[in-house]
């Protein structure tokens, strides 16, 4: 039977290659994910070991407690601690981590940075082992900087050039005196200034986040840690370099774990779609070989042997597809690396490690999916009666679709009902929603063949009306086997349903953000750094001094814990808040906000039974808990959030080097000339390079557009499953043309031109693709709307449906249909008319 299996594959090599192509795409995603993960893992490990070079012990603020959402918050430490630490025996060098943000203007006058990567600033110290000077000299004095190599290259500047720098919140012209090299920067830029400048820019309040300690030769890390710890106040702790390394590794593993799972979900979608195509191809191939299989049965092959033969073919295809997929996956990882390099301006990895695990998983997944998809067609093949070998017409009467339709329809209805119930509750039931969505997708897949006739008729209507007999022939061909058309279209449906669902949610997020900003922000202008950087505090200070400005509200925040409520609190001052935001007080006064009072929103107050005048325990950042009095309760606000604290608490909790505003809101004097004010503000922020002036509408747009970046990434990942589905259309069409060889020969003989034939096949392809897109859009709309309904309690209040995008998707589907038809159409028009007629 092995010989027959291999001969079977050889005999239909092209069809099997197309099937292997579907396996390949799914597997390549898996391989690419693993390789990319391993690659990033290796690079980051390298980065840590570089960054932790010379770190024997680190002293840092303690975490206030382990629970809640404030894990990352550590209390800042006073610079004065440096003296204490230097005095500890065994300590060779103590370096306070004086660092913050810094950036320079490049040759073109714009900020030098890559995408959303951090813009880091460090103190330049000759003895710092984390970097090395490769050209020029270190900076000295406030008007000199050293620049990291990749940053310098990107800036287009060279040593000795003068440019503008933003160091912390200070802006000044500087001269580039040196070029330094770090380990991998992972896309971040770095600018270094001398110690005094660094301290004035990033530690003006005398606080830093940590101290790095190098041991004297011969002193071991644990010994030194113990000695250092003994000298520390309660708010500080000491860890060894080794422990720090382990911590970073742990954090990295968790992060990469999320990343891997995230990517594998998309690989899973692509493989699921691939399974449809494998199933379809096997069904068609076996259908075409009915007579051959029946002959095998007639000469004595058992059912088991036939089934074994089919599964054997599946194993071979699975192996071939996996092998190709591994190759393509490595290419994809390379491509992703290159894309990251272009995006971040930095290489993330020097090599691409291909681990045995990556290869092993790819093969296992590829072969399993292929074999599983071939089981049903294989069983069907084994049931062919030997007498079929003798029969002339091999048309197997298609089973009725009614039962299938009712089952699918029932699943769809039950699923959607469950989903609808789950998400419209005040407290959405997500597990039920998940089950409902799953049932709905399953129902749609099962019932799809029943919808083929009406939907394809509708799609093909313009072609039939305008294209005459060619359009009619194409329509009838698509309807000939509704199951097959539906299966092919379903593969496309899955990817497009996810894309539609996502775009509904994304559009709703944008609309909701826009609604919130429009209804809650009353500022004249907003200064922002594009969402990826903070606006330096000096900007708001300077803006305050402009005569036409009535008030300036800075939106900055810090993690707080109020009673049992863990949240990110907005910090500000009552006056500017009142002028820049529409905040409705339910009880108490906004003006009550000060260092001893906290304001909370209505829902939090109700849930916790807080009333105005009551004292509640509040922890701000890593500061010790304190009692604050509830000064007022305001109507829930999406923009301000759940808790409002005074600016002074923020300043106490956040060291100067880390401060900055997400946005700075400017309210003009009632008599102000707003156009002139805009010009003044533009002049004011221009030196800060990243900060821009926006009016209300622009702020709405820019807030909403931040969704797009993430969305585009998701689209790219989902595109994979769409490509697999398109491959499925190509495969199905190509196979159906082989089935119809004689019919095509006849049509050509009675005068169908090559162009008309190609047109017919293209219309079939377009009808299938658009059918899939219509199903996908319908299902995706249902899922997207459900998701929005469920998330409305979390602030996603406005439902917005991207009709234009969905229309574009349908249009794109027809283009995809045209492309998918190219190969099958070329094959069809190249058929020799005479041979085609003579085929059996």
């Amino acid at each position: 039977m092995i010989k027959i299996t291999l001969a079977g594959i050889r005999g239909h090599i092209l069809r099997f290659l197309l099937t292997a192509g579907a396996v390949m795409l799914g597997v390549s995603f898996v391989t690419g994910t693993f390789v990319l993960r391993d690659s990033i893992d290796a690079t980051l490990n390298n980065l840590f070991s570089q960054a932790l070079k010379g770190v024997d012990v680190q002293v840092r603020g303690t975490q206030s407690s382990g629970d809640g959402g404030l894990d990352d918050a550590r209390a800042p430490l006073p610079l004065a601690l440096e003296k204490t630490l230097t005095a500890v025996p065994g300590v060779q060098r103590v370096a306070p981590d004086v660092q913050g943000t810094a950036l320079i203007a490049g040759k073109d006058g714009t900020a030098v940075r890559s995408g959303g990567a951090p813009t880091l600033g460090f103190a330049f110290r000759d003895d710092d082992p984390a970097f090395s000077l490769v050209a020029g000299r270190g900076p000295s004095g406030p008007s000199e900087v050293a620049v990291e190599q990749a940053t310098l290259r990107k800036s287009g500047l060279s040593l000795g050039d003068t440019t503008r720098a933003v160091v912390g919140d200070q802006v000044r012209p500087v001269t580039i005196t040196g070029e330094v090299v770090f380990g991998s920067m992972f896309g971040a830029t770095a600018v270094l200034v001398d110690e005094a400048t660094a301290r004035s820019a990033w530690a003006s309040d005398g606080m830093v986040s940590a101290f790095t300690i190098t041991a004297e030769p011969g002193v071991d890390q644990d010994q030194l840690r113990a000695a250092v710890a003994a000298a520390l106040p309660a708010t500080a702790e000491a860890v060894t370099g080794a422990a720090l390394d382990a911590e970073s590794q742990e954090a990295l593993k968790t992060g990469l774990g999320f990343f891997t799972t995230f990517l594998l979900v998309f690989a899973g979608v692509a493989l699921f779609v691939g399974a449809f195509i494998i199933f379809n191809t096997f069904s068609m191939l076996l259908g075409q070989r009915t007579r051959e299989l029946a002959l095998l049965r007639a000469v004595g092959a058992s059912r088991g042997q036939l089934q074994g033969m089919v599964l054997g073919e599946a194993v071979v295809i699975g192996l071939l597809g996996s092998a190709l997929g591994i190759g393509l996956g490595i290419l994809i990882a390379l491509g992703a690396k290159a894309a990251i390099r272009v995006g971040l301006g930095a290489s993330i990895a020097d090599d691409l490690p291909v681990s045995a695990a990556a290869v092993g998983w790819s093969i296992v997944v590829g072969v399993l999916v292929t074999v599983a998809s071939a089981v049903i067609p294989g069983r069907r093949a084994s049931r062919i009666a030997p007498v079929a070998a003798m029969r002339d017409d091999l048309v197997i009467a298609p089973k009725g679709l009614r039962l299938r339709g009712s089952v699918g329809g029932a699943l769809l209805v039950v699923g959607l009902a469950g989903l609808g119930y789950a998400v419209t509750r005040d407290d959405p039931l997500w597990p039920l929603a998940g089950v409902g969505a799953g049932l709905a997708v399953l129902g749609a897949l099962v019932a799809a063949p029943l919808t083929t006739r009406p939907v394809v008729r509708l799609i093909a209507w313009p072609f039939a009306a305008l294209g005459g007999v060619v359009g009619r022939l194409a329509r009838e061909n698509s309807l000939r086997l509704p199951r097959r058309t539906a299966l092919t279209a379903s593969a496309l449906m899955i990817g497009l349903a996810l894309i539609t669902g996502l775009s509904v949610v994304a559009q709703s997020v944008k609309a909701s953000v826009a609604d919130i900003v429009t209804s809650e922000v009353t500022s004249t202008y907003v200064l922002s750094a594009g969402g990826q950087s903070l606006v330096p505090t000096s900007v708001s200070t300077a803006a305050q001094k402009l005569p036409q400005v009535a008030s300036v509200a800075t939106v900055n925040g810090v993690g707080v814990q109020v009673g049992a409520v863990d949240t990110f609190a907005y910090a500000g001052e009552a006056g500017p808040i009142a002028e820049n935001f529409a905040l409705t007080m339910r009880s108490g006064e906004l003006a009550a906000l000060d260092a001893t009072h906290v304001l909370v929103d209505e829902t939090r107050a109700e849930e916790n039974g807080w009333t105005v005048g009551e004292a509640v325990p509040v922890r701000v950042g890593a500061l010790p808990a304190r009692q604050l009095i509830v000064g007022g309760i305001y109507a829930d606000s999406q923009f301000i959030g759940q808790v409002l604290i005074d600016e002074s608490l923020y300043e106490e909790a956040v060291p100067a080097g880390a401060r900055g505003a997400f946005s700075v809101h400017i309210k003009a004097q009632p008599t102000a000339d707003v156009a002139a004010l805009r010009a003044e503000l533009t002049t004011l922020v221009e030196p800060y390079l990243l900060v821009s002036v926006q009016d209300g509408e622009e702020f709405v747009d820019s807030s909403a557009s931040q969704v797009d970046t993430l969305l585009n990434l998701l689209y790219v990942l989902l595109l994979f499953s769409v490509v697999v589905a398109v491959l499925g259309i190509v495969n199905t069409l190509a196979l159906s043309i082989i089935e119809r060889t004689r019919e095509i020969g006849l049509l050509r003989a009675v005068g169908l031109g090559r162009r008309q034939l190609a047109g017919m096949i293209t219309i079939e392809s377009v009808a299938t693709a658009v059918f899939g897109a219509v199903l996908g859009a319908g299902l995706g709309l249902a899922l997207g709307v459900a998701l929005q309904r469920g998330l409305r309690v979390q602030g996603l209040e406005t439902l917005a449906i991207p009709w234009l995008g969905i229309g574009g998707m349908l249009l794109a589907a027809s283009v995809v249909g045209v492309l998918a038809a190219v190969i099958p159409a070329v094959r069809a028009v190249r058929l020799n008319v005479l041979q085609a007629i003579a085929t059996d």
Partner: protein
Amino acid sequence: MGIHVAGIESADDAAHRAGGIAFAEGLTKIYGSGEARVVALDEVDVSFERGRLTAIMGPSGSGKSTLMHCMAALDTPTSGRIVIDGVDLAGLKDRELTRLRRDRLGFVFQSFNLVPTLSARENITLPLDIAGKPVDPAWFDNVIDTIGLRDRLAHRPNQLSGGQQQRVACARALVSRPAIVFADEPTGNLDSRASAEILGFLRRSVDDFGQSVVMVTHEPSAAAYADRVLFLDDGRIVDELLSPTADSVLERMRGFDMATRRS
């Protein structure tokens, strides 16, 4: 042998043109090369008369199907000249050949004559629909009444018997009023009763409508419906019979068999 073979004297080419709806000169078709070289047609000169039913007979491999395929613009000869309804096929591109088949030729094949997704009516008007030409309703009715399938027009091919399918195919071949209809063993898959219907129908199309028909067959009884029978062997026309009967055809074939055996 003293057998008169039509079209052997190229001198009176014009005469052929006058009476012939299609003719070929020096038609040669060679398949393969070297050891596998097969001469399917060997310098054949032939003419088919207008308004006549011509049958082509011959043993398997005699070249009768190749001759018909070449004459019907389905296959390209290795050398020689073919003129159909005044159109010289030499140098015609695929598009022009397709148009010629669509507008001037009709086909009836042995089997698989109909597009399964189209109804009988749609199959009949297929060549006109492909060409985007209107159907002449009077002529359509005339053809339909002749084949007698008026009540079956809405049926799909799989709802029709083999004989009915073949009748639909004949109607399709006639509906565009082609210059010439080529039938390749049109009764090869039918029982004798259905065969008689089809052959009677082809005969009537010649007698009543003046249609020119060329039919390849290996059945003497089918050839008996023709006005003229051409016998092919080894790629050459070896004999001809006018106003044949089944017996005379059979006799000729027998004699011809013995002649080839003797040689």
